[in-house]
């Protein structure tokens, strides 16, 4: 069918809220290029998965688009130089992360020439093998730009048996304030559509749906126009409601299916990508340009000229604030991401990274602070709005009382931390904070369990080794006694020395072999024993990540490919949560 016409049935998800949108402010003027800063601070960890490995040294001159750090492992993404210049430092710098910690970053002093490295566009992607396409996308450092930052090439792999029914392009952008996807859809729908073609080719998806919330009529119009006449592509205008842009919620709205708990959308034949990611994929394939910049919304009441800027990664936030005429002393809180799920930054010097979709410089008035936290009156407003149908109230009581097993019984780990419950709470209880605390406590607890299990295992092995060495010593002593006794008996046939020596060596060899065999058997028995004990005493695992590296797989020779799949699934799952 063609795009835009015949509204298809939409489904519903439970709960949700309608917070004040505050999107108009940053869409009053068209997007612009951010100014080139003097220095770029590029953290090596801008995505979900392992941090990238630097491949440049201090003092190296780099060109725009040149790879400066390699992906480290399956779930990882490389980092590229956003402009030409000189590497002046590779060290720990503060990164934009809820922890407020520092991490290894590459600092580039820009030279202002903005000189591109030689890059090669793919001539015709339809002729290219999907696996090769994925490789280009991986090498271009493309990660999910919706905010989670999961390496995109993994989500473009349908797997060997899984048939992808629906590819959903997420243009929902349900969080208040954020308008970067909105602006991109308005201003550059062609890139998005071109990227979608590549994704469909890679996934061989049956149908494709672009979902846009009805508070973005201009983006909808623009995408409809660009997508006119494309077969198998449908554009769904979905009623505005937060958190509709959450992957599981959107999959439910579009397909009516629930992504299983602990599972992935791909398990039910659906893959979900952000519209901005589609545009990045287009640039990677058609232009050969890696991911070095993104659209960022600069907004909030402290910003005099709120708008969207195309920002090079590594640009310090203060540069953007300056460009948008921020009154620094007006800022009460600086948020990266949306007001519902974004995290507060402690400083304006932090850099923009691949997952930075929005910077909110909020004033005190805007936040409406200083509301007293009152006791829970069990009104149930939180349960009414929970998109996962949890009982936030019960989770709150148990988290507060540190009854962690009870909290898990109420499916704590299904919480997506969307913040709806905290938003509606008339008592202003910071509910999400309690859940994060409980999750952290459970993770720590399981780590400790794991550690103590490993310690016990080590201890048992040690006892076994001591025992074995003792037995070996005794065996040796006994052996020594035996040859002496034999030597004493003068019945041995007269053989020449060389032959004699050979025979003794053979004998010794065979004895040692059998000893080795016995030892092997003993070790295997011990492993089996430990295994059995472990299985019976295993802590209740909470997510795929914990399952993936139970010691069972560390000690038994399971196929490594299995493990790899597991770990990727685990990280994928993390993305869902974030």
């Amino acid at each position, binding site marked *: 069918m063609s795009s835009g016409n015949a509204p298809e049935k939409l489904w519903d998800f439970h709960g949700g809220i309608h917070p004040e949108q505050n999107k108009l402010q940053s869409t009053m003027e068209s997007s612009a290029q951010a100014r080139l800063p003097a220095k770029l601070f590029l953290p090596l960890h801008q995505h979900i998965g392992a941090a990238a490995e630097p491949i440049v040294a201090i003092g190296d001159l780099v060109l725009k688009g040149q790879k400066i750090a390699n992906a480290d492992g399956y779930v990882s993404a490389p980092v590229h130089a956003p402009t030409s210049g000189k590497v002046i430092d590779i060290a720990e710098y503060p990164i934009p992360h809820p922890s407020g910690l520092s991490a290894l970053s590459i600092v580039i002093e820009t030279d202002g020439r903005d000189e591109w490295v030689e890059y090669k566009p793919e001539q015709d992607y339809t002729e290219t093998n999907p696996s090769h396409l994925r490789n280009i996308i991986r090498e271009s450092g493309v990660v999910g730009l919706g905010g989670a930052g999961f390496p995109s090439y993994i989500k473009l792999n349908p797997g060997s048996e899984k048939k992808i029914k629906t590819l959903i392009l997420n243009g929902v952008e349900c969080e208040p304030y954020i308008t970067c996807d909105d602006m991109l859809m308005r201003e550059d729908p062609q890139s998005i559509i071109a990227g979608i073609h590549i994704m469909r080719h890679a996934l061989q998806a049956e149908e494709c749906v672009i979902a846009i919330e009805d508070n973005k009529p201009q983006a909808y119009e623009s995408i409809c126009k660009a997508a006119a006449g494309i077969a198998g592509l449908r554009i769904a205008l979905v009623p505005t409601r937060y958190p509709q842009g959450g992957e599981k919620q959107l999959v439910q709205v579009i397909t009516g299916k629930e992504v299983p708990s602990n599972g992935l959308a791909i398990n039910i034949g659906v893959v979900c990508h952000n519209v901005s990611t589609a545009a990045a994929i287009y640039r990677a394939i058609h232009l050969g340009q890696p991911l070095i910049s993104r659209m960022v919304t600069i907004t909030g009441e402290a910003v005099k000229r709120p708008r969207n800027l195309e920002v090079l990664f590594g640009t310090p936030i203060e540069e953007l604030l300056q460009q948008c005429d921020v009154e620094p002393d007006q800022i009460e809180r600086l948020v990266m991401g949306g007001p519902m799920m974004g995290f*507060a930054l*402690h*400083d304006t010097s932090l850099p923009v990274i691949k997952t930075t979709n929005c910077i909110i410089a*909020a004033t005190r008035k805007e*936040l409406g602070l200083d*509301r007293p936290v009152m006791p829970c009156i069990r*009104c149930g407003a939180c349960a009414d709005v929970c998109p996962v149908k949890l*009982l936030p109230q019960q989770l709150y009581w148990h988290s507060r009382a540190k009854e962690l097993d009870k909290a898990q019984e109420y499916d704590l780990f*299904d919480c997506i931390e969307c913040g709806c419950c905290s938003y509606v709470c008339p008592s202003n209880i910071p509910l999400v904070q309690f859940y994060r605390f409980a999750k952290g406590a459970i993770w720590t607890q399981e780590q400790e369990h794991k550690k103590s299990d490993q310690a016990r295992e080590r201890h048992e092995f040690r006892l076994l080794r001591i025992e074995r060495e003792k037995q070996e010593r005794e065996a040796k002593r006994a052996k020594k006694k035996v040859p002496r006794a034999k030597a004493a008996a003068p019945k041995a046939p007269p053989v020449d020395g060389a032959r004699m020596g050979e025979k003794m060596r053979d004998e010794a060899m065979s004895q040692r072999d059998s000893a080795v065999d016995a030892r092997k058997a003993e070790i295997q028995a011990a492993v089996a024993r430990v295994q059995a004990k472990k299985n019976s005493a295993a802590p209740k695992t909470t997510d795929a990540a914990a399952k993936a590296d139970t010691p069972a797989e560390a000690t038994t020779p399971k196929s490594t490919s299995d493990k790899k799949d597991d770990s990727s699934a685990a990280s994928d799952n993390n993305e869902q949560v974030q």
Partner: protein
Amino acid sequence: MPFNTPTSPHQLAPTSITRVMMMVMLALIPGITAYVWFFGWGVVVNICIALVTALTCEALILKLRQRPVLPFLSDGSAALTAILIALTLPPLSPWWITVIGVAFAIIIAKQLYGGLGYNPFNPAMVGYVMLLISFPREMTSWIPPTALADSSLDFLETAMFILFHTLPDGVTFDALTEATPLDSLKTHLALGNTVDEVRAQLGLDEQSSRVLSVIPIFGAIGGKGWEWLGGGFLLGGLWLIYKKVISWHIPVAMIGSLLAISSLFYLIDPAHYATPMFHLFSGAVMLGAFFIATDPVTAAASNRGKIIYGCGIGIFTYVIRTWGGYPDAVAFAVLLLNMCAPLIDHYFKSSVFGHKK
């Protein structure tokens, strides 16, 4: 300059407990208006006494418990409890009835359990039931609708009576009081009359040889005046549902179950069981369904749980009214179901997203 980094969300809905309580109080206005219209100024005096008592007790205990006084006084919960108790009392109750009831509700039923949010029982109903059991004579001395009374009191006379027990010359207290329709019905059914006889004789037939009362206290569907009171509370309650301050589950379940069970018995034997409409629009059913059973602190939490909870209240109300020792039973039914709320919550959870049903 380093900023504070509290966790998300950074945007909150413009809501607060105070706002919720204020909305509930606003929704009581139609009912209170009807109350004053049909039963005089007594209820207003009672509300004033109750408010002063509640706020004083709340402040006192908060001080003793070393809790912040102002945030909890201004949350409106104590005020709402006070108003609800005042609405359940006979309009001409002496002042000390109100004071004892409200003080008991606030101090014993609410604060001693930990204050706002921690009380297992609805404080207003605890206060009311305590009064009903301890002072049965005072608590059953209702007055008839002003239009039917031999004499009625103005605001000042009412206040004088409540505070100092003095009546204007020539007026006796007995001339002012009258049993409630529910009470009369129960008494006369127990004497062997049929519902129709009771209603007809009480209401219209003054010439009959078996005149039970000359005051027509029965109205078109419920008790005279009482049906308007119920209508007022129904109106306010519907507004609360419309404003999403309360959910429909408990009121609908409670009224629905009461309607169902009273219809069943009415159809079986209309001579000895009152009409469903009489049950709905007499006594405290409407007030209870929208304003008392919906108290979130003491009710079931999940939607399915709320339906069970509401049905329980409706059925217990009918059972106690019909076969129990008290003419009205909303308070007892609410307290009984308060006890069951944690159990209901335990067994009626919603199915979590992504888990197999």
